[in-house]
């Protein structure tokens, strides 16, 4: 038996064109290509791919349905386990998850599981006109979910399917969390996020925006109000700065601010939309994770002439997804490795003008197993910049832990939970980045799934 050793390529917008717009870069499979890619799947017994999926999608089963041309059934198969398939098919790091386990990957490229998931989800959204039939028993019990990011939305969907009355409380004016404010339109169109949220609403989930738990209501008040269990999924939205001189100069942003302005507030369509975003000609993005890649590529689309990613380790250690790094390179983003800023220097008007950097070399591996960057004394040099975007990570917002008695967090501010997602406060569960620190969309969804199971168990035993 012979196989095609490579994935069917997915059509993409030309890099020279796409840096002029915010439209999606990857265009998705058509039906014929999807079937051809599905035919590469060997339908392994034991489905190793499924074990690599944090929410346990029955991968061979949905791929078989695509092979047979029943695309709507394929989409519904995925939705049995995954409440946000159109999102996951686009933003999951499949190379570290399902596709990493695919046996085809040993001799060639794995099956394009993410691409097929995306195809089935998009097909279903476009052509599936059947209403959701849920043979659920309505329990009448109320569950509150705090935060409408991937963890919160997943838990809300699963709990609704289990018959609970679910209310999601969201601080911003749009649901989606990082899907709405963080990941740019060209990677995850916002109408797709809206479509997935609408699907959850169709399951009976109520979403209340502009509700800042810890301010508008406290956890205790939610219990008083009749909620019997609470899932805290507030993420890691507190931006870290470097605490170097000049960091408060004009033109210096956190990646969170830069991306929130552009994505959530649609500043890329200013003045049609009323939120401005400032972008200079020479942009430096500090950090090399997915948030850094998103910021760099957004800066290009806003008209920056030169965008440089500045990272204190080497190319090999970059935490961003390979596909994102490749896309950034194709679009003309430059990389400055083994380098970190030590000082930002402003002009007379107080705008950032220069960035003093220092060279690093890699020393011994640290606790995380990555080689520790060590500054090279006397290696300082200047880089001309007029915009600096700090993308060096985010921590947990302390609003909820500060206002809830008995809810314990660790030294980093992450909420402490047991293996079932139960916090130190009875009836309060937590999951996603608020527990793990900044991680991935799909891990947050896995945590949301676990929380729904645990909350169901807790409320049955109660």
């Amino acid at each position, binding site marked *: 038996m012979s196989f095609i050793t490579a994935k069917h390529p997915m059509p993409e917008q030309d890099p020279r064109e796409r840096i002029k717009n915010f439209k999606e870069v990857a265009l998705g499979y058509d039906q014929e290509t999807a079937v051809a890619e599905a035919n590469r799947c060997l339908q392994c017994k034991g489905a190793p791919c499924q074990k690599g999926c944090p929410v346990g999608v029955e991968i061979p089963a949905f791929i078989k349905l695509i092979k047979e041309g029943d695309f709507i059934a394929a989409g519904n198969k995925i939705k049995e386990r995954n409440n946000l398939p159109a999102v996951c098919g686009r933003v999951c790091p499949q190379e570290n998850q399902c596709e990493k386990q695919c046996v085809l990957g040993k001799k060639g490229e794995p099956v394009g599981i993410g691409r097929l998931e995306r195809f089935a989800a998009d097909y279903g959204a476009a052509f599936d006109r059947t209403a959701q039939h849920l043979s659920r028993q309505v329990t009448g019990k109320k569950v509150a979910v705090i935060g409408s990011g991937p963890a919160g939305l997943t838990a809300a969907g699963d709990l609704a399917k289990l018959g609970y009355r679910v209310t999601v409380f969201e601080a*911003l004016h749009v649901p989606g969390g990082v899907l709405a404010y963080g990941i740019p339109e060209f990677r995850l169109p916002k109408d797709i996020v809206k479509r997935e949220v609408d699907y959850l609403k169709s399951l009976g989930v109520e979403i209340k925006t502009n509700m800042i738990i810890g301010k508008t209501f406290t956890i205790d008040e939610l219990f008083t109000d009749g909620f019997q269990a609470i899932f805290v999924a507030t993420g890691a939205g507190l931006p870290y700065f470097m605490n170097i001189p000049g960091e*408060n100069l004009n033109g210096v942003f956190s990646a*969170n601010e830069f991306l929130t302005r552009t994505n959530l507030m649609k500043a890329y369509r200013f003045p049609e939309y009323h939120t401005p975003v400032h972008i200079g000609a020479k942009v430096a993005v500090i950090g090399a994770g997915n948030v850094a890649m998103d910021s760099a590529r957004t800066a290009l689309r806003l008209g920056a002439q030169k965008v440089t990613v500045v990272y204190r380790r080497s190319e090999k250690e970059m935490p961003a997804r390979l596909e994102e790094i490749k896309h950034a390179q194709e679009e003309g983003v430059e990389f400055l490795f083994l380098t970190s800023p030590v000082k930002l220097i402003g002009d007379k008007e107080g705008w950032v003008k220069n960035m003093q950097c220092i060279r690093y070399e890699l020393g011994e591996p640290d606790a995380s197993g990555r080689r520790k960057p060590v500054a090279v004394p006397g290696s300082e040099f200047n880089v001309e910049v007029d915009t600096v975007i700090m993308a060096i990570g985010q921590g947990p917002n302390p609003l909820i832990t500060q206002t809830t008695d008995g809810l314990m967090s660790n030294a980093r501010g992450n909420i402490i939970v047991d293996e079932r997602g139960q916090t130190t406060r009875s009836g309060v569960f937590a999951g996603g980045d608020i527990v793990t620190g900044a991680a991935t969309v799909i891990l947050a969804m896995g945590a949301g799934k676990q929380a729904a199971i645990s909350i169901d168990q807790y409320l049955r035993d109660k």
Partner: protein
Amino acid sequence: MYRILQKRSLATGIHMYEISAPEIAAKALPGQFIILRVDEWGERIPLTIFDFDRKSGSIKIIFQEVGFTTKRLACLKQGDFITDIAGPLGMPSHIKKYGRVIAIGGGVGAAPIFPIVRALKEAGNEVISIIGAKSAETLILQDVMNNVSDRLIICTDDGSVGEKGFVTEVLQKQLTGEKPDLVMAIGPLPMMQAVSELTASYAVKTLVSLNPIMVDGTGMCGACRVKIGEETKFACVEGPEFDGHLVDWETLIRRSTMYAKEQELILGEKVRSGGGCGCHS
């Protein structure tokens, strides 16, 4: 959606809205603010809660038309809706018994100082209030401030009502008399800076309420960061009230001008959504 129950004009370009927002009214404390978004094209802007009525579930805001969004907001009428309001945000004002307090409201800053003065008075303080404006036409809240203060001093730049001169000149006279235990100042950044510099020379504890650029108002972006002493703080969650003697005023004033060009552009721009409002040509 948040309904405007009542609209009142207080002075040229200064308006008061009473808005139905029961969740916010239930929790609001003096010194806190809201973030609002006028409509689906809108930007998010912070405004202090002027007053709140827990029973009727309404809050009041007072704002001055200073730029594009406040002009759009001013176009709304009684019965209209504001798309999004989030709050109450920020730390409440530090209300306790200090003793003798001088409270200063500069321009539209008389609005945010009002609930603080009322609370300081209720906490047993002796409160001397100073409110200043450019001229009689832009002076607001004279009556309500008078009601909650032991003494109210009015001043205008042109002398058209009250004493002629800046609030700092009135304050100076007060500082040379019996030394106050606290000065509380809210107004334009240069005014708060001038007050803080003046009180520093008399070693009088001074609190100010800062108004840097904000986006989310919940601590997730750092747009509102200010340098307080040696530390960078996010005004939306750790403030907006800070020790005026520790604020890095130069950086704060500079950062507040960051979008001056874009502000100018959108005010003149015809290509924008939400349509014109018809009340400003």
